[in-house]
Structure formats: C-alpha cells, structure tokens
C-alpha cells in the first residue's frame, strides 16, 4: 500500500478514536459547576458571609457527587453508545443534583445562612436541572481532556510540533503560548543536549579509558582506573536521575500548555460555538431562574429569549468569521460582550416591568458577573471541541515526531562519533606519547644514573594518568580569537583572509566553537584533498539569526560541480552544524572552490563537548 494510503487509513483510525468517558473527573466537574454557581449567588445576594458560607456548603456537596460517580464509573465504561452514556449521565446528574440541592437547603438552614432562596422544592428542581446538564458536559469534557492528554503524554508526538504546525503565524501564539512553549522547548533542548553530551563524553571517557587501561597498567602499574570508572558510573546515574525529574516536570507543563493551545485552536476554528454555548447558558439561566422567579411563564420567556439571542449572536459570529477569516479572536470577544449586553437589556426590561423582583437594583454588578460567566462557559465550550479536534493532530504530530526523532538519533550518533574521535586522538596522540616519552626519559636517566629525573618523570606520568582529560577541555573564546586560533597554525601552508560581520561579535561560546570546528574541517579538507594554498572566509549573520559562512579557495582536486556529501568526519560536522544546509561547489570559470553553509540560530550541537 502506498504511503498516502497508509496515512489516510491511520488518519481515519485516529479520527474514530475517542478517549473513554471518565466519571472520576467528578471533583473537577464540581469545581467547574461551582464557578458559575458562585457567580449566580453573587448576583442574588449582597451578603459576603452568605456567599462564602454558600460556597463552602457546596464544596462539601462534592462528597454527594464524588462517591456514587466513582462507583458508577466502571458501569459507564461498559456502554458503547455515546448517546446512552450521556443520557444516563444526565439522569444520574439530575438525581445527584436533587440530592445536592436538598443537602444545600438543609445545611443553609442549619447554619442560619440568610439566603433569598428558601424554597426546598424549587432548589431541588433547579439543582436537578443543573445536574442533568452538567454531568453530560462533564463526561464530554472528560473525554476531551482524555484526547488532549493522549497528545500531551503520548509517545507519538510533542506539543511543540503541534504548535509549530498550527500557530506559527498567529498573534496569540506570538504572545503568551509562544513564550511558554519556547521556554519549555529551549529548556528541554538544552537539558537533552547537555545531558546527551555529558553522557556521551562520560561513556566515551569510560570506554576509552577502560580499553586502554590494561595496556597502560602493564607499563605503569601505579594508577587504578577503576576508581575513575566508578566515579563516572555514579555521575552517569546522577545525570539520569536529574534527567528523569526534569522530564516529569516538563511533561506536566506540556500537558497544561496543550490544553490551552487546543482551546485556542478551537477558538480560531469556531469563534463562538453556538450549540454548546447556548445549551450551557440556557441551562444555567433556567436552573437559577427557577429559584429566583415566581412565574413559570416568565422563566420560559426569559430563557427562550436568552437562548435565541445567544444562538443568534454566536451563529452570526460564526457566519461572519467564515466569510472573512479575520479577527477571529477579537470578533469572538466582541460577540460575547454584545451577547451579554443583550441579556442585560432583557433583564432590564424584566426589572422595569417587575418580573424579577429579587434582582432589583443590581444591574451593573449582574452584567459584569454575567460577562465573567459567559467567558467561562465560552472557554468550556471550546475545551470540549478542542479534545475532538486535537485527535487529528496526533496524526500530524506523529509524522513530525518521527522526523524529529530520526534527526535527533542522527545527531546523537554524530556527537558520539565526534567525541569518540577526539578521545581517540587524545589518548593515542597525547597520553601514549607521554608514556613513550617517559619510558625513553627513564631509560636515559638510568643510563646517566640520575635518580631524580626518574622520580620526576614518574610523577609527571602519574599526573597525566590521574587526570586523563586535562588538555581536552576547550576554553571559551570570542569569535575573533577562535578564528585566530584555528587559522594561525596553518600559516606557511595556507594564505588566508577573513571578513567578519560586526553583528557576530557577541556570538555565544557554543556557536563560536561550532564555527571554529567547521573552519578547521573546511581548511583541512581544502589543503589535504584540494591542495589549496589560499582561502578567503566571510562570516555574516542573516535576518533570522543564522550564521552564513562563505569561503572561496584555490583547491584543484575537488569535484567539478554539485555537492559532496560522502560521509566522513568533516561531513558529519558540517551536517550537525547546519542540519544539512551546506554545499561545496566548483566555480570552473573563476577556478575557485566555493563552500557555503548556514549555521542554524537554534543550534545546540557542541563539537567540543
């Protein structure tokens, strides 16, 4: 089957997948319902004491909801039909709501909370209606959160890829979420690469030293490398623990951010969600109006009008946005505010005509609280939708993730390869040289009969073996110093000239080392393989913060045209530094070999680690 066919099949499977309903979400559900409830109470009474006690009583009502919902949780997972689950959820919500209402009523009586709502029958009915509405909403939310969770915790994708895919150009992304994610991504990348580097260096250190230990110990049986090995093992263990802890923290932060991003994404897609928005508002209004209003007729009229207004406003907003596809966020806020204003007018009308005596004289406060309530419900509506739409992203994210993992694995291999080479050169070139020289010096001292030289030489070699990595660590330099350090050793073999953009003077140490390592390989290749005797190097910064390296030399033995990507150490370094964005070409007309590379601004590859 073709790759496209596979993808379609996978997409279909993902689209049909939904996280199961989760009734254990009950505490969250109650908290969610407490927010509009408390707002409604704030509307209905002037007494802070009443509101506080009322909220406290309701918090305790969590127990009424919590226990049976946990018991019923397993039963709910048995039903395969979503509608049946939701309907049963509504019935259970109504029963629990009625119980909760009765509890609240009697608790208020017991505590002498002076609340205008003193009718047991109306309270029970209203909370039953609210329960009937809220529990199915809670179930849908639990499913949505489950879907989002799948992305946040799933192995298949990272939230970062999701953002990159969907929100790159958005203003909102450029503000809060982008900052949040960039911080996470930067932190994750820094930790990952730092730890990968440390692990690689330590692992290479250990394997190199152990593989050479036997040979070295044969020559000088004075230093045990096992101590060093044990210390490295402990360091590796400590780094792994640190990494696991960091990942746990980051996973939690990712989860929270993904919820926000998914909601935002849904806001972008549906500026106002007419169905959910209207449903929740009407249920909230209906439930509370029953308590506050004497007339069933007025309740029906008020709720119907509010529903019609809400539906009309949100519907118009959607229509407008679908035509223009502009200002979706601003338009949503505007539509929502206008909606609240209409409800305000409706309430004013009812107040003036004496339909709602309990709310007399509280219009401004009520409207302000309504606005908060509407925004809250608006957010919840989008949260529900977000869970469904987020599923699709699993597919996209998984594709990006595969590529990202492949690149990451490749880079790790490159890192290991480069670190391995550095250690090999160091051990063969420096440590073994010192041992050979020491042997010769000792031999000469024996010939001379000079015991002090023998002791000095042995001390010197002991020091070298005790600290085998001395001399391997590079010092941090500014770019000009790095260029001088890399180019000056070639004096006499190669004439060089450099030109450096002033914007690069404050380059960070890692990228300075990357530039140095690239130049080192570039020059070595030009001299060794191309017989170059002259080179000119130009370094500048592009508008996106990448470092552009342009070099021309008089090599003669390079391929006449095209690129040379055969895998060697040089190629490995070039690919790692530029993520493959480099080319080497022969300019036949001018008789020059031209090398061009852009070093990414996000590069975290450190060749010297």
């Amino acid at each position, binding site marked *: 089957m073709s790759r496209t066919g596979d993808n379609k099949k996978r997409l279909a499977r993902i689209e049909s997948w939904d996280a199961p309903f989760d009734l254990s979400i009950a505490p969250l559900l109650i908290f969610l319902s407490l927010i509009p409830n408390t707002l409604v109470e704030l509307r209905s009474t002037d007494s802070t004491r009443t509101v506080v006690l009322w909220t406290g009583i309701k918090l305790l009502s969590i127990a009424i909801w919590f226990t049976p919902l946990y018991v019923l949780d397993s039963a709910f997972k048995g039903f395969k039909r979503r509608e049946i689950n939701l309907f049963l959820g509504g019935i259970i919500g109504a029963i629990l709501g009625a119980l909760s209402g009765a509890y609240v009523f009697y608790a208020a009586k017991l505590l002498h909370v002076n609340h205008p709502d003193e009718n047991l029958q109306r309270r029970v009915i209203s909370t039953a209606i609210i329960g009937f509405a809220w529990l199915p909403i809670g179930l849908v939310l639990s499913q949505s959160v489950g879907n989002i969770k799948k992305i946040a915790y799933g192995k298949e994708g990272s939230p970062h890829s999701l953002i990159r895919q969907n929100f790159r150009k958005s203003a909102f992304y450029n503000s809060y979420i982008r900052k949040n994610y960039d911080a996470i991504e930067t932190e994750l990348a820094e930790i990952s690469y730092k730890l990968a580097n440390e692990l690689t260096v330590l692992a290479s250190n250990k394997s190199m030293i152990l593989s050479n230990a036997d040979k070295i110990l044969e020559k000088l049986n004075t230093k045990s490398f096992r101590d060093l090995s044990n210390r490295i093992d402990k360091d590796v263990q400590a780094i792994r623990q640190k990494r696991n802890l960091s990942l746990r923290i980051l996973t939690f932060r990712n989860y929270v951010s993904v919820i926000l991003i998914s909601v935002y994404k849904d806001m972008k897609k549906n500026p106002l969600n007419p169905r959910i928005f209207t449903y929740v508002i009407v249920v909230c209004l209906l439930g509370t109006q029953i308590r506050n209003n004497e007339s069933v007729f007025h309740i029906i009229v008020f709720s119907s009008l509010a529903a019609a207004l809400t539906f009309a406003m949100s519907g118009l907003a959607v229509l407008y946005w679908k035509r223009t596809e502009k200002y979706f966020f601003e338009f949503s806020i505007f539509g929502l505010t206008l909606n609240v204003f209409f409800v305000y007018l409706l309430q004013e009308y009812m107040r003036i005509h004496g339909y709602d005596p309990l709310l007399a004289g509280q219009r401004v406060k009520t409207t302000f609280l309504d606005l908060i309530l509407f925004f809250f419900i608006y957010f919840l509506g989008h949260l529900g939708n977000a869970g469904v739409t987020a599923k699709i992203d699993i597919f996209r994210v998984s594709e990006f993730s595969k590529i990202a993992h492949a690149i990451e694995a490749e880079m790790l291999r490159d890192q290991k390869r480069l670190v391995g080479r550095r250690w090999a*050169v160091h051990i063969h070139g420096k440590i073994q040289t*010192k041992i050979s020289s*020491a*042997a*010769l010096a000792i031999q000469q001292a024996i010939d001379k009969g000079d015991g002090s030289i023998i002791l000095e030489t042995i001390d010197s070699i002991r020091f070298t073996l005790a600290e085998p990595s001395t001399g391997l660590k590079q010092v941090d330099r500014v770019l000009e110093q790095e260029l001088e350090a890399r180019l000056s050793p070639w004096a*006499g073999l190669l004439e060089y000239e450099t030109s450096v953009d002033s914007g690069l003077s404050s380059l960070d140490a890692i990228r300075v080392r990357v530039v140095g390592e690239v130049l080192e390989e570039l020059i070595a290749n030009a001299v060794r393989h191309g017989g170059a005797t002259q080179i000119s190097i130009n370094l500048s910064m592009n508008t996106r913060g990448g470092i552009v390296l342009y070099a021309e030399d008089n090599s003669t033995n390079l391929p006449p045209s095209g690129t040379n990507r055969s895998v060697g150490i040089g190629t490995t370094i070039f690919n790692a530094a530029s993520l493959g964005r480099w080319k080497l070409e022969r300019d036949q007309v001018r008789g020059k070999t031209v090398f061009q590379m852009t070093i990414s601004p996000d590069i975290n590859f450190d060749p010297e680690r």
Partner: protein
Amino acid sequence: MPGLRVMLIEDDELTRSTVKEALAKKGIDVIFDTPHVADALTFAKKHRPDVAVVDYNLGKGPNGIDLANGLRKFDPSIGIVLLTSFLNPTQLPTQIAKLPKGSKYLIKHSVSEISVLIKEIEAAAAYVA
C-alpha cells in the same frame, strides 16, 4: 651516519627534549626543534636540514603529513620521518598513503628504543628526489 642535520617538530615538550637529547647522544645533530608548523617551514626554507622528524598529531591545525607535504614543496629532497602513536587501523593506512614519497613512519612506542629511530632517520636521509 654522522653529521646529519635534523629538524624535530613535536608539540609535546617532554618528548621533544627527550628525543633531541637521545639523538645527540648518538651523534645526530638536532639543529632546530619546534612545536609550530609555521616556524618549521620558515626554518627549513632558510637552513635546508637533511631530515625532518615530524610528529603526526600536532594539535589543532595541520598535522604532520600536511607539514611533510609542505616541506617537500620547496625542498623535494628533504627526508621525512613521521612519528605516530596512532594505532587506529581505520585511519592510519589512508593517512600514511598521503605521505610524500620516500617518507618513513614510526609508531611512537618504538622511540623508546632510540636506535630504531636513528635507523629510520638514516633511511629517510638517503632519499633522492
């Protein structure tokens, strides 16, 4: 072969001084020793030594083979002895192949037996361009 004028390029100071002293004891005159490629090239252009004993690994920048090729460009008859401690079989053969014609190379372990080095220096000096 007494009277040979040898130049030694080695970045490790202990090795440089030890080898120089050992060669002197055997009657070979090390007329110049340095860790730097540029200094070696400048000296060789002016004083034309018979043999250059060059360490393969000279740290950052050019290696001993780069220097050997550089020396031969202006003095086609200079003898070259390359010292290497590199035992990595995946690198050494391809690198050695790039040594100038008539060059000798020696694994550094052998330097502890100085007569081996002297034998290679004499063989390198006999090279005729």
